[in-house]
Structure formats: structure tokens, C-alpha cells
């Protein structure tokens, strides 16, 4: 995947997300949290992870676990841009009987490691993958993408405890801190007092960055700490890339019409 211009990749993925949401009609898409995570995904797939569309089931591939499973559309888009999924297939997003529902279904050939949609499980699975790597002395790395709302789930912290106990320095957890969840701002719904300190308390090496900044992301993904799992606390903006919806509530899940689609694409082009 390496070599592709990450910024261009990110913009293409954002366009795909909007197109998929339009095509999904009344089913809509989780557009807000998809857009906030795009830069994280683009850097992972464009510059960081050792994965290849030619050998999707290579046992030494890095593992990417999408724990905030409702943004499968963003994952489908980046997988399509990187050749794992055909574009036409990507556009069957949410179509009846299709391979690409709202929440992804495990499909290693297409680069999809787990079935997602029930929040709070991805980190446990990631701990398992990382533990398996340690057991077999395999050199792949495991990346888990969490939502900040998702971190309300106690299971996240159970997994954190275990990651630290087993010294999983081959695990990087990224939290997309866009400050919102389904019902609105996390500050109102269920705030986490200090997520950096919480991860530190569980024994992680924590890196805090602007999660919509490509260079900062690249820097964060290069960090290693012997014997410790890494948590990247990535501050982002929900709806990032489309000024009209950036940071606004009401865009967690939405349907859009043709007019909005055109306006969103224009805003994306201008914001580039």
C-alpha cells in the first residue's frame, strides 16, 4: 500500500463514504464517525500496516480490528481504494443479500478481520491476536480502532488490563476521540474523566495527538515501548472534511439526498 499519497487517499475515502451513504438511500450510513476516522485509516493502510490485497490471508499480515464497527463504510472505502474490494462491490453497501452490510462480516479475503457492530469487543479480540503473535513468535502487529463512546463499555477496560498483564508491546490501540457518541456530546452522555490517565493507569504507553493530522498520525504509529501496549488517543472532529457538518450533532447516522451529496463533495474538494 505504501507510496500512495495519504492526503489524496483520505479525500478519496471521504468521497466514497458520502457516495455510499447516498446509495444506501433510507438505510443511511454512520457518516459522522466514519469521517472522523478516515485519516487514521488512511495512514494505517497507506503508510503503516504490512497488508497486501494480493495476499490478504498472509499469516504475517498486520491485523486491523475495527472495533467501532458501525463505520464499516469507511473501512470498505479504504479497502476498495487499496484494492482489497472491487469498487462496484463497495457500492453494494447495505444492499439486501450483499457482502457489505452496515456492520462488517468477517471476510479475510476482503481484508475484514472480524464481524463487528456490537461495541466493546474489538480490543479483547486484538489482545487475543497479539497474544497469538507472541505465542508463535510472529512479527505482525495488531491495531485496534475504538470509538470514545465505545470506551463506556467495561469490556474495553477488561481488555486493557489483560494487554498490560501480557506485556503486549505488539498491540496499538487507537481511540478516535471525536467527543461524540450516538446521543450527542460525550460530555453530556457519559464523559470519561481523563482517558489519557486511564490508559496510563492500565499500563499503556500513551501518545496523544490530533487524529486528523497525517504527520502526527505517522509519528504516533512509529512509537514503540518495550513491554507495553500503545494507546494512541487521537483527537478528531466528527464529520471531519465537510465543514457543514463538522463537530455538529445529528450526523452520527444519517441519510443524504442528491443535493446534499453534491454539496458535500464540493465542500470536500474545497477543504482539500
Amino acid at each position, binding site marked *: 500500500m505504501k507510496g500512495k499519497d495519504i492526503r489524496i487517499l483520505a479525500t478519496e475515502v471521504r468521497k466514497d463514504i458520502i457516495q455510499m451513504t447516498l446509495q*444506501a438511500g433510507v*438505510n443511511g450510513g454512520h457518516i459522522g464517525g466514519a469521517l472522523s476516522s478516515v485519516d487514521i485509516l488512511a495512514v494505517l493502510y497507506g503508510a503503516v500496516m504490512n497488508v497486501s490485497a494480493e495476499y490478504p490471508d498472509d499469516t504475517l499480515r498486520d491485523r486491523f480490528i475495527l472495533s467501532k*464497527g458501525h463505520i464499516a463504510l469507511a473501512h470498505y472505502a479504504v479497502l476498495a481504494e487499496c484494492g482489497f474490494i472491487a469498487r462496484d462491490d463497495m457500492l453494494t453497501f*447495505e*444492499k*439486501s*443479500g*450483499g457482502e457489505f*452490510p*452496515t*456492520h462488517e*462480516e468477517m471476510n479475510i479475503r476482503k481484508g475484514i478481520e472480524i*464481524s*463487528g*457492530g*456490537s*461495541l*466493546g469487543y474489538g480490543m479483547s479480540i486484538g489482545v487475543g491476536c497479539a497474544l497469538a503473535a507472541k505465542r508463535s513468535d510472529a512479527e505482525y502487529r495488531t491495531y485496534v480502532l475504538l470509538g470514545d*463512546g*465505545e470506551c*463506556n*463499555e*467495561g469490556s474495553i477496560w477488561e481488555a486493557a488490563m489483560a494487554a498490560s498483564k501480557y506485556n503486549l508491546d505488539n498491540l496499538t490501540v487507537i481511540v478516535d476521540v471525536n467527543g461524540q*457518541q*450516538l*446521543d*450527542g456530546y*460525550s460530555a*453530556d*452522555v*457519559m464523559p470519561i474523566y481523563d482517558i489519557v490517565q486511564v490508559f496510563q493507569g492500565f499500563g499503556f504507553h500513551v501518545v496523544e495527538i490530533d487524529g486528523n493530522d497525517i504527520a502526527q498520525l505517522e509519528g504516533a504509529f512509529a512509537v514503540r515501548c518495550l513491554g507495553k501496549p500503545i494507546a494512541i488517543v487521537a483527537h478528531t472532529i466528527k464529520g471531519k472534511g465537510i465543514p457543514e457538518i463538522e463537530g455538529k450533532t445529528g450526523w452520527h447516522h444519517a441519510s443524504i439526498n442528491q443535493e446534499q451529496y453534491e454539496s458535500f463533495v464540493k465542500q470536500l474538494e474545497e477543504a482539500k
Partner: protein
Amino acid sequence: MIEYIPENILRWTRLGMRKSFGGMMEDIVRDYEDIVILAADVASSAGLSRFQSIFPHKFYNIGIAEQNMVGIAAGLAKEGNNVFITSFAPFVALRAYEAVRVLVGYMDLNVKIVALASGLSLGSQGNTHYCLNDLAIMRTIPGMLILSPADCIEAAKCLEFLAGYKGPAYLRLTGIDGTPGVYKGDYCFEPKKNALLREGTDVIILGTGSILNECVRTSRALKQDGISAAVVDVHTVKPLDTDFLNQICRKYQLVVTVEEHSVLGGLGGAVAEYMATAGKHPHLLSIGIQDVFPKTGDYSYVLQQTGLSALQIKERIKQRLETD
């Protein structure tokens, strides 16, 4: 008090059971001072946004933490509150199940679980969002009352009943926005008593939840083929109305159960368990979702995939009558 006027009924049907929940509770809490509602970051999905702004002191958003929500509900109930908790069905029923069993069931606390969008109603969202075994597992908690309304009007009736009920209860909301109702206006809802929706003499169809809308259409279609099928609304899945099974169902040659739920352990299971151990009984046909994770898609597509459309139900019944 809830008003069963055409304007309300129309609005509920347009919204569906899930999004009508909040509005119904706005009316109900005015008569029940002790009610508090807890949601797990799904207030807007449950139509509770306005409730939250009108009654901020009666509402708590616990975040995406369903087990924690059940625990907090247990504590509130123990201290005398009349607690309603809600999330999407799989998360509140399956994810938090053991908490429900111990903290609500075992301690017999006054917590009413409102399970949103159960069955297949979340369509394209897929299997993590379907809930096809909640009846099965909730049934096995001693003392758990299980209500499964046929439409929005009946959901309102159930909520009104639950507001005055004390003890563990599970309310299973099904259907999508626009699913037609089977009741047309106000009616006399009798908890724990099956309700006859259509008379019939050859076959009796026991349905539960919004799938009853399909069952009524099945019965109409069967009538055209000269088969007279009664349709019964089993709004209370537990305790089962065994008087009805004994006195009414035994008169038929075939008893059919229909549910948007696994064929294992739900209404079909409950009826079969009872009938099989209570003497001679009619033939039984259990229609529901086979023991598979269905292919996902729009709601109507998944109903079709799982054989739960009116015409597919009709065919199953006809085939069965021919072979019996």
C-alpha cells in the same frame, strides 16, 4: 394517561414501536411519580429526546454500558424507584443477560426492560443487531414477565400496564416504522390472556409481536383457498396462557406458532413444551427463524429470506395440512 385517538395512533404507526416509546412514556409518567428511565446511549433511537428535556430529573443516560445500566437500575429499584431501562434488544437482553438474571430476576426487583427493535427489524444493520433468542433466554429467568405487543397500540397498553406493575419484566418491541397495526383503536387489553384477532375453524395461528400483521394477512389468504384460520395475539409470552391452550387450541387439528425469533426456545418452544407434556394434543407447526444467522438486508428482504412473509407462512400451513 395515553389517549388512543386516531392522531396518536397514526403518529405511532408512522414512527414504529421503537421511536414511539419515548412519547408514550411522556404521557405515562404524569400518572406515575416514581418512574425513572435509563438509556444506554440510545435515547434518540428510543424517541426519548423530548422526554429527557421535559423530565430531566426522571432520565439518566448511562452511556454505552448495558451491564452497568442493569446494575444501576437494580440499585434504583431496590431503593423504591419504578425503573424502565432501554437499549437495542441484543445489547440489553443478550449482552447484559447475566446481570438481568442475577440483579433483576434473582433479586426480584422492579425493573422493566424495554428491548428496542427486536427480531429482524434492524434490517441492513445485520446480525449483531438482530435479536432472535431473547424470548428463549428471558423465559428461563424465574418470575420474568414477558410482553411482546403486536403493534403500537398494544405497545402503549403494555407500557401502561408495566407502569403499574411491580417486578422484573421484559417488553419486546418489534416491527419497523410504518408496519401496519392489527388493532384499529382503543380496545380492552387483558395482560396474560391471549387475544383472538380473527375467528377460524380449521387451523389456529398463535403469533407474537409485529409479525402478527403477516399472520392476519396469512389468514385472509388462506380463506381464499377455503381454509379457515384463527389468529391469536400472544402478547404475553410468559406466563403462557395455558387455559387458552387447553380450552381453545385443543379443538383444532393444527396449532401454528409464528414468531420473529429462533424456532428454538421462543413461543413455539413454549407452546410445544406445554402441549407435549399436558396430554393428547393437536399437531404443532412452529414457524420462525431456523437455527442460522440469516443473510442480511432490508427488513422485508430478511422476512422473505427467513420464510416469514404472509404468503410463505400460508404455504407452510397448507403443506402441513396436506401431509397431516
